Structures are given as structure tokens and as C-alpha cells.
């Protein structure tokens, strides 16, 4: 037996990883071109935008493919499996994966536009910054499409390590490297915890492939599943850290405050998308039979996140910290939909999609007001903003109201969806906690709006935002309103996104 005979090539599904290839190769090209030709930063930015757009185009092609596959007939089943689970079922091409890419690429594009000024100011590091942004997006997209725990871990690390660097990329400021080291240390602990969970799951079930795990668990009844349960617990903790759910949230406010303003919206949104995509993939695909076990646990984390996030956000004087804590609360809201199991997938994706867009937009406004390369954003800077920068104030208002969940914004539809799912899954108490938290949440969002519209302006002019910032903010608030008024299409799109 020669060595060559041992190896059988895997089924390669180019289309299934096309957007990731585009982003990864694009990032490499940006680095290479930068070394060789020292292009203008604007050109680099435009190239990045083109790369993101290309990847988005491929994602649309994938969506088309998924649609076709879902209507496949029985005799096409073999073909279906090969196309849907390429690379020996390391990843999957399903609606869940495609929706994850849509959300990720949209957030990347918006984040790029909103953080444009940061990249202009990064000087010689702009290429690295842009490449890292693209690479982290690649990692988080892999998290949404992986059906193998090792792929999830690699995606997590690709995304996270890039974010650690981005948090500290403006090294000139002390806050930036403080944020980076905090994020890095806690993040790598969380990653280690996650991979330990993977190892224990492997020990407990004999596989790292989510579908195989599900099969094993369906075929066997384990009398003593402790190793497996610890594995699940540790993976939940690892993902809980990524999405900044309490009590694993403590990094989030500090990092949001310390990281450079232009990138922090993208950082927050991308980590949330990746974390939740992987979390629902793991819990819904591999452990649907354990829902009575992990359901109450997730509910507990959700309740703690909502209450802690919204009460602490109330006493913040820094808008970026406030958004950080409100992000904790929103992680809790999204987890409220997770407890419903597979039935809540569509609602979770919907919430994730609309919330991350609002998040990127809101941080975009903060960056436009207090600077794209700076840390922190005291509420004082926003007093009387409506007089100094009406456009920024108006978009911020829309985005904040969206986050607060006012009817006729996307946030209302999203909240209503996850609450209903949780209620129907029998978690009435959780919904009551969630409503209470959203009542509290109203205050701190409104406080900012009141500061912008009803308080005397501080004597400080705001530099008019550039065209890309304007465009991204307008788009984000437009999405918030339009999805709020016409949620139907997105609801049905997200509703398709159940993991195979």
C-alpha cells in the first residue's frame, strides 16, 4: 500500500466557501500590495469595499444554491449531501450559514464605511487594519457555517485574534493597549475554556462533528453523561463570553470604551454574530435532545444578562460604555429566543441582524462625534447635538429608538419575536424579566436622546462626517425604520435559516 493510495481527496465545495476565499485572499492581496506599492489609503479602503461586495455577491449565489437545494427531489439526495456538506461535512451550505454571511458582510461593509476615518488616520498600519478586519470577518463567517467543532474553534480564533489586534491597533493611546490586553487575556482564557469543552464533548460522544454527535446521542442513552454535560457547559461559557452575556461580559464595556472608535462597532457586532451563530449551531444541531437541560441554563444566563446589562447601563456616563452594557442586555434578549430551541432560530437571526446593524450605526455616530481614533465618549459631547450636527443626532435617535424597541422600528419586531418564542416555549418568567429589562433600557437610550435634543450644546463644533460615514449611518437608520415598517421579507428570510 503506497502512501498515495491511502489518501482519498475530500469533496471540495468551492461555492460553499467562496465568500471566505474572497475575503481571505483579498486580505492577503491587500497586505502584499501594501508592501510592494504603498498605495493610497483611500484606494486600500475602496479595494476592501470591493472585496466585501464581491464576497456578498458570492453569498447571494450561495443563497440561490440553498434555495435550489431545499427543493431538491429524492433522487438528487446524494448530490444534495455532497453539495451541502463539502469537505467531508466540515462545513455546511445551508440557509443558516448564508444568513450568517449576509449579516457578517453587511456589518463589515457598514463598519468599514463608519470607521473610514480611523483607517485614514492609521497611517502605515491601514493595510494591516483592513486586512485584519477582513480576516476576522472570515473567521466569524466560518463559525456560522461550521458543522465541526474544530472548525468552529478555528473560526473563533481567527476572528478573535484579529479583534485583539484591532482593539490595540492605536497603540499610541494607553486606553487602547489596556483594552487590547484585557480582551486578549480574558479572550484567550475563554477560548481555552471553549476548546476544553470541545475536547470533553469529543471524549463524551466520540466525535467533533455536530451531526454525528446528534446521531450518537439519538442512538445511545448515556446513563452518566457528565463529561458530555461539562463539555456543553464549557462551550456555552466560551460562546457566552464572545457574545458578552453575563457573567462573562466584564471585558465588553472596557474594550468598547478603550478600543479605537472607528472599529469598535464592527468589533462588537461581528463577535455577536459569530458567537450566536456558533451557539445556535452547536445547541440546536448537536444537542436538540438536551434542550430540557441546557434550556434553563441559557434562560438563567439570559435573565442575568438583561438585568445586569440594563441596570448598569443606566449609571454610565460614557456612551460607549453604555452601549457596551446595553450590548450585554441585548445578548440576554437574543438568548431569550435561544431557549426556544430550533423553533426560535428565525427570531434569533432576525434580532441578530437588525441589532448588529443598529450597533454598528450607533458606534459610527459615536465615532463621528468624538473621534474615530479616540477612546471613550462622555455624554457631555452629545449635549445639544441636534443643533450642532442634526444629521448625526437624527440617525442616532433612530438607532437608539430601534435598540429600545419602539414600535415601528426593527427593534420592536425583533423583541416581540424572541419574547413570543420564549413564552411559547414555557419561559413566561423569562419574558417578564425581559419586559422589565426593556422598560429599564428605555431610560438610558432616552437619556441620550434628551441630551441631544433638549440640553444646551457644549461649545464644541463637530467635524462634518465624511460621505462614507454619512452613507453608512443613513443606511443603518434606514434599515432600522424600513425593517420596522416592512418586517415581512426579512422575517421570512430569517425564518428559513434553520440549521440543517
Amino acid at each position: 500500500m503506497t502512501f498515495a493510495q491511502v489518501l482519498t481527496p475530500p469533496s471540495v465545495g468551492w461555492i460553499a466557501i467562496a465568500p471566505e476565499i474572497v475575503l481571505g485572499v483579498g486580505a492577503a492581496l491587500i497586505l502584499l500590495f501594501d508592501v510592494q506599492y504603498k498605495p493610497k489609503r483611500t484606494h486600500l479602503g475602496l479595494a476592501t469595499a470591493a472585496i466585501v461586495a464581491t464576497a456578498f455577491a458570492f453569498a447571494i449565489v450561495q443563497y440561490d444554491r440553498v434555495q435550489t437545494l431545499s427543493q431538491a427531489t429524492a433522487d438528487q439526495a446524494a448530490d444534495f449531501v455532497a453539495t451541502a456538506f463539502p469537505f467531508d461535512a466540515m462545513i455546511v451550505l445551508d440557509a443558516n450559514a448564508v444568513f450568517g454571511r449576509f449579516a457578517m458582510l453587511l456589518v463589515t461593509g457598514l463598519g468599514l464605511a463608519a470607521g473610514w476615518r480611523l483607517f485614514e488616520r492609521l497611517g502605515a498600519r491601514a493595510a494591516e487594519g483592513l486586512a485584519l478586519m477582513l480576516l476576522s470577518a472570515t473567521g466569524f463567517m466560518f463559525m456560522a457555517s461550521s458543522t465541526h467543532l474544530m472548525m468552529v474553534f478555528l473560526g473563533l480564533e481567527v476572528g478573535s485574534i484579529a479583534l485583539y489586534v484591532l482593539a490595540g491597533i492605536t497603540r499610541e493611546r494607553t486606553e487602547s493597549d489596556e483594552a487590547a490586553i484585557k480582551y486578549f487575556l480574558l479572550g484567550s482564557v475563554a477560548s481555552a475554556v471553549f476548546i476544553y469543552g470541545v475536547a470533553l464533548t469529543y471524549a463524551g460522544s466520540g466525535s467533533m462533528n455536530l451531526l454525528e454527535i446528534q446521531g450518537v446521542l439519538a442512538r445511545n442513552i448515556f446513563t452518566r453523561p457528565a463529561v458530555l454535560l461539562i463539555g456543553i457547559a464549557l462551550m456555552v461559557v466560551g460562546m457566552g463570553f464572545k457574545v458578552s452575556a453575563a457573567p462573562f461580559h466584564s471585558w465588553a464595556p472596557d474594550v468598547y470604551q478603550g478600543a479605537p472608535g472607528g472599529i469598535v462597532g464592527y468589533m462588537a457586532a461581528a463577535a455577536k454574530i459569530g458567537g450566536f451563530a456558533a451557539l445556535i449551531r452547536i445547541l440546536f444541531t448537536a444537542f436538540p435532545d438536551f434542550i430540557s437541560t441546557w434550556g434553563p441554563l441559557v434562560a438563567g444566563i439570559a435573565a442575568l444578562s438583561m438585568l445586569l446589562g440594563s441596570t448598569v447601563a443606566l449609571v454610565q456616563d460614557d456612551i460607549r460604555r453604555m452601549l457596551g452594557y446595553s450590548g450585554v442586555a441585548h445578548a440576554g434578549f437574543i438568548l431569550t429566543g435561544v431557549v426556544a430551541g430550533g423553533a426560535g432560530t428565525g427570531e434569533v437571526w432576525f434580532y441578530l441582524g437588525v441589532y448588529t446593524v443598529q450597533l454598528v450605526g450607533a458606534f459610527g455616530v459615536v465615532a463621528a462625534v468624538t473621534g474615530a481614533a479616540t477612546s471613550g465618549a462622555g455624554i457631555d459631547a452629545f449635549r445639544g447635538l441636534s443643533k450642532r450636527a442634526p444629521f448625526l443626532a437624527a440617525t442616532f435617535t433612530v438607532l437608539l429608538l430601534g435598540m429600545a424597541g419602539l414600535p415601528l422600528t426593527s427593534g420592536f419586531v425583533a423583541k416581540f419575536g424572541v419574547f413570543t418564542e420564549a413564552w411559547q416555549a414555557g419561559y413566561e418568567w423569562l419574558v417578564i424579566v425581559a419586559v422589565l429589562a426593556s422598560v429599564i433600557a428605555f431610560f438610558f437610550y432616552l437619556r441620550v436622546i434628551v441630551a441631544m435634543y433638549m440640553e444646551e450644546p457644549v461649545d464644541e463644533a463637530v467635524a462634518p462626517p465624511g460621505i462614507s460615514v454619512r452613507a453608512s449611518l443613513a443606511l443603518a437608520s434606514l434599515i432600522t425604520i424600513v425593517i420596522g415598517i416592512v418586517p415581512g421579507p426579512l422575517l421570512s428570510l430569517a425564518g428559513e435559516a434553520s440549521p440543517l
Partner: protein
Amino acid sequence: MIEVTAGWYLSLAAVLFSIGLLGILVRRNALIMFMCVELMLNAVNLTFVAAGRALGNLEGQVAVFFVLVVAAAEVVVGLAIIVAIFRRRESASVDELATLRG
């Protein structure tokens, strides 16, 4: 005759992992905290290898390679951040980093 089963290694790994986890809380030197993370990752590797042997497949051993690569990439970035911290503050103590709080 006592047989050393996978469970022995898994238990040992759990202990090592816990020591690493607690080390993060005890040490203030960022570098040593990071060593504790490496310790945790090694405990994970031991789990993978031992479980793989008991399960009779090599996936556990293959997984170790990927954990190693991840650890290497983390080391590169982590040490770069730690050096950056040190060059500014002449100290690698994380206790002195608390301007972001509340």
C-alpha cells in the same frame, strides 16, 4: 494490576486545566497569566489524546495539531501586546491597568 485508563488522563487534565484557570486569578504578570493559558491548552491536548486513544480514532490527535497552531498564533499576538504594554509602562503587571472601569 491497575490499568491506567483514559479516565486517569482526563482527571489529570482536569486538574491541570484548573490550575491554569486559577493561575490567571493569582498572577498579575501578564506574561505568566499567558503561560497559564498555555497550561490550559495543554490540558486540553492531553484530553484530546487520551480520549482519542480510548475511542480508537485519531481525530483527537489531529485536533492537537490545530490547538498547537492556534496557541502559536495567540503567542505571537499576545506577546506583541504584552511587549507593547511593557514598553509603555516598564511593567507587565495587569493590576496597573485599570483606567477603563465602572
